[in-house]
Each structure stands twice: as structure tokens, then as C-alpha cells.
């Protein structure tokens, strides 16, 4: 299992933004979704998840609201702002660019 520290900040932000772009979610749900979707390859450590959520909220890319949730009690639900959607576009592009550059390098060996 990769340790949380294997994910650098930029990638974590990208994953969070992408995840709640599908549907608003609480912190727990975000962690769970990332883990499931990646087929247990990625697990998000709580130690970086909540600070990242706060940071994104401060940037104005996501917003939070206490709402009734599937957990059977009110939880803090995060959703994407329009700015966040633009930021997600940017980060997706940069991810594509970087990962294909690396792929280029290792496959042409």
C-alpha cells in the first residue's frame, strides 16, 4: 500500500476536486471514494485530507455545508465552486501533460 506521503499535494488536490466534481461528499466519503475508485491502490491519509480540504476551501475552490448525510447524521458536505471547476480543468491538463511526459521517457528507454 502506498503511504499517504507518496501523493504530493498537487495530486491530492486534483483527486479531491475530481471526486467531489461528481457529487458533493463529506470528508469520509471522499477518502473512501478515492480508495475504492483506485482499486485500493491509493489511500488518503486523514492527516493530509482535512488540511487539504481546508486549504481548498480557503482558495475558494470548494465550499462546505453541514447537511443530513448517508451516515445517518449531519456531516460537513463539500461541493465544487465554479472557480473550483476551472481549477480542476487546469490541474487535469497539467496532470495529463506531466504524466505523458514521464511515460514518454520511461517507454522510450
Amino acid at each position: 500500500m502506498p503511504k499517504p506521503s507518496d501523493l504530493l499535494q498537487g495530486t491530492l488536490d486534483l483527486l479531491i476536486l475530481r471526486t467531489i466534481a461528481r457529487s458533493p461528499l463529506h470528508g469520509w466519503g471522499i477518502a473512501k471514494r478515492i480508495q475504492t475508485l483506485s482499486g485500493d491502490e491509493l489511500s488518503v491519509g486523514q492527516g493530509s485530507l482535512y488540511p487539504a480540504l481546508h486549504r481548498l476551501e480557503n482558495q475558494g475552490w470548494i465550499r462546505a455545508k453541514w447537511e443530513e448525510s448517508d451516515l445517518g447524521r449531519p456531516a460537513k458536505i463539500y461541493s465544487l465552486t465554479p472557480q473550483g471547476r476551472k481549477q480542476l480543468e487546469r490541474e487535469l491538463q497539467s496532470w495529463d501533460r506531466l504524466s505523458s511526459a514521464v511515460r514518454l521517457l520511461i517507454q522510450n528507454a
Partner: protein
Amino acid sequence: MLQGTLDMLVLQTLALGPAHGHTITHVIEHRSEDVLQVEHGSLYPALHRLEDRGWIASFWGTSENNRKAKYYRLTQAGRKQLIAQTARWEQLVSAIGRILKPATEEPR
């Protein structure tokens, strides 16, 4: 960028043949068509780390312009590590790819 990527790229570059630090940077930047920029501030700590773990070895040689320079080459362990890291990297990237995949987007 994913951490560990730089290590992998350095190993990958040295798999092509021994090189000194500057060449490594140059090769990575050139072959990625300048998309990947390697900071000197992170390259040397990486080389240090890799040497520490026995994945690369260094020796003194003469550079193109006849200066003394420290060259690095891949060790056997390093070659294995490269294969492992490449696989790991592919794995991670595809995992991330699954999360990012637009096909699974649910209606908003």
C-alpha cells in the same frame, strides 16, 4: 508530480549510460520536450539518496570540456529498482487515471 518520480527518471536516464549530474538534468528536460524541469535543488539530494541505497554508483571522470566531473552509473540493484519503480509508477498512474476518468462521471 508524484514523489519518487524523479528517482525513477534518474534511474531511467542512467540506464542509457553513465552521465554526470548536469547531463542527467539535460537529458530529462530534453527528452520530455521541456515539460519536466529538474531543479538542481532536488536533483543532487536525489542522487545522494540513490547512491546511499546502492542503486547508483559514482566515479570521477573527465567531462566533455576536459574538466574533472563526477559521473553516475546504474548498479545491478538499481536496474532492478528501476523495473520495480516503473511498474509501481504505472500502477499509481492508472489508479489515479481511474479516479480522473470522465467515463464514470455521474450526473450532477
